[in-house]
């Protein structure tokens, strides 16, 4: 039972609710491992996923999650660039609601738009990412992945590395991780940080934290969301912020590497490490994050919809 109708931001969930999501995700993880990966929990419910920004993994992850719960899911994607006036998105929304859907999963290129759309509909909404604002399901699947790996959360040291300013993942993770007792350090140069970072623990180079961090969380360099090219070059990025084999070898024995995907190979993470990630027994959790994504989204769909 969640207190809010919709999940628009990680702040919409209190600690108890987050634990509830993680526990439900555990049981949905089991279902995904079965031969018959389907339960009738949401039979007869219709979920519409509206993507006003290109996405592969999040959209597919929600789709698989809904299908494993026996909900019917329909996908609508539109390039936001083809919708010049917001009037059009509101019209699209009205059209889809008229078809009596039970839940909306929405992604939009512009910050705040999912909240705007939520404010005019009666059905619950799950934010699948809005602009540079929030991506709550990503942060939840990340915390689930971390908890699964370490069997604890309190006191773990996590470094969010790279393009903080343009990243909704960074904002969501920072807030959720801190709420769950992790120690968060942001590793970024001045132009990829907000004007005032006085409330954050900040380092400017990955070398400053590499030996001490439990979780090295690499942020995707958001070239598509950079309003103006401020970072000088990839070479400069590699110098201070990328993960190569040398840096990987300096990490603590039981530490892990995470990335929300898709990885810009050779920028955040070097090719050789991505190749290493395919082998068993490594501490690169990128694939585990994707797997957890389905279970966590099943849990959210169930908690938001299954009990209504």
């Amino acid at each position, binding site marked *: 039972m969640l207190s809010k109708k919709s999940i628009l931001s990680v702040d919409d969930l209190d600690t108890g609710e987050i634990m509830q999501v993680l526990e439900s995700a555990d049981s949905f993880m089991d279902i995904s491992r079965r031969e018959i990966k389907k339960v009738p929990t949401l039979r007869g419910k219709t979920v519409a996923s509206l993507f006003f920004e290109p996405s592969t993994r999040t959209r597919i992850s929600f789709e698989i999650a809904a299908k494993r719960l026996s909900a019917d899911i329909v996908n609508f994607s539109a390039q936001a660039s083809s919708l*010049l*006036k*917001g*009037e059009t*998105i*509101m019209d699209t929304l009205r059209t889809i609601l008229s078809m009596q859907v039970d839940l909306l999963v929405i992604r*939009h*290129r*512009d*910050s*705040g*738009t999912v*909240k*705007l759309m939520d404010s005019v509909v009666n059905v619950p909404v799950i934010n699948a990412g*809005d*602009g*540079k*604002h*929030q991506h709550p399901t990503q942060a939840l699947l990340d915390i689930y992945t971390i908890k699964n790996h370490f069997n604890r959360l309190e006191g773990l040291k996590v470094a969010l590395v790279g393009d903080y*300013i343009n990243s*909704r993942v960074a*904002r969501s993770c920072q807030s959720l991780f801190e709420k769950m007792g992790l120690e968060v350090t942001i590793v970024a140069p001045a132009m990829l940080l*907000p*004007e*005032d970072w006085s*409330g954050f623990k900040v380092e400017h180079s990955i070398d400053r934290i590499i030996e001490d961090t439990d979780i090295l969380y690499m942020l995707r360099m958001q070239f598509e969301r950079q*309003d*103006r090219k401020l970072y000088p070059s990839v070479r400069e990025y590699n110098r201070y912020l990328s993960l190569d084999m040398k840096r990987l070898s300096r990490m603590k024995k039981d530490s892990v590497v995470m990335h929300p995907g898709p990885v810009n190979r050779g920028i955040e993470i070097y090719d050789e490490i991505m190749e290493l990630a395919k082998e068993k027994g490594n501490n690169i959790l990128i694939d585990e994050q994707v797997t957890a994504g389905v279970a966590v989204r099943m849990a959210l769909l169930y908690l938001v919809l299954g009990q209504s």
Partner: protein
Amino acid sequence: MKMENAILIKNGFFFNSRQNKIVPGDIYIENGKVAEIGKDISYAGEDVSVIDASGLTAIPGLIDMHVHLREPGFEDEETIASGARAALKGGVTALAAMPNTNPPADSEQLIKYILTAGSATDCRIYPIACLTKGQEGKEMTEMGILSEAGAAGFSDDGMPVMDGKLMYEIMKYSLQFGKPLILHEEDLYFSGPGLMHEGEFSTRLGLEGIPSLADEVMIARDIMLAEKTGARIHITHLSSSGGVELVRQAKSSGANISCDVTPHHLFFNDSILETFNTNFKVKPPIRSRADQAALMEGLKDGTIDAIASDHAPHLDTEKNTTFKLASFGTTGLETFFAACYTRLVSENGMGIEKLIPLLTEGPAKILGIEKNRIEKGHRACIALVDTDAEFVVKREDFISKSKNSAFLGLKLRGVVRYTISGGKIVYGKK
């Protein structure tokens, strides 16, 4: 037969501009002018419209020096006529019309057109002409011809002149005509794709920020140019504490500078953006709590000379959209007095005698236009306000063509009951 132009305002108080205070008194208006002020004036007879002003205060008609009337070009948002009606409802009997119309007001014909259309309304409309042709920031306009045609000042408003050398030449030339240069200060490289004040809230909301520096580096530049040339500059809609401080220093070193602030920058701070309500998307952006306090301080110590609404009407389709796509601006004419009175007098304890000049004499002096005063022989432009009454700002009550008010849903104090312009009752029960 009832004479339209004889009005007797009885049993009320009025703002005496010479004594700078509110005093009791009746006002008799005839032939467009204040004919008599005194105790218990009684002109009986059918030819006089009598207003019982018990509980009301007569204040000079307000002068709003920053209004977007949108005509020509955007008549679906506002027209000169509809904007004038909205003004009169707000107690505003004179206003300056900003030139970012389509085409922009950079020609003699357009200035004359605005004057002609304005004279058909009951509000005095003062056209502001562009600083540069087409507001393109490349070539200055015919400032002489435009002044002679009736431009009250010059501004490129939302399209600041980024070319410092051009601004320098404009300032030098402007001295020949004595009209103020009204400057919207924004370094477009700093503001870039910004949507709100850059600070704690923009970071959290993931909305691109507009730093205070965007305003301040331009204010600093133009102060330097004005000090060098002696030009008469007016910084409109100050938004940041640094901006207030720059003007304060410039004034103390003798620059020929004035400035204004809007009611919405006084009323709100950037925490309100958490709603993602696009009516709070304005330029310059609504800034931090500290900036809000600095603007208040600037009003109190006299750094800020005037309050102007920056009435910026927009269609629903321009506002009911994503925060990124929404247009900048809030309407302000109809809530002008109430927003100022509520914020400054009710909430901050400023005396009404301190507020009224900011809405009347202050802007009149800046623009060099006729002052509205309640004095014998003066043109009768008066607003009768009830400062005890409160109202909730509702969409359906707006008479402006646009409804994009940042004040929607708020309870404000200070209701304009009647507006008299040129000796006629132009708003309120006749």
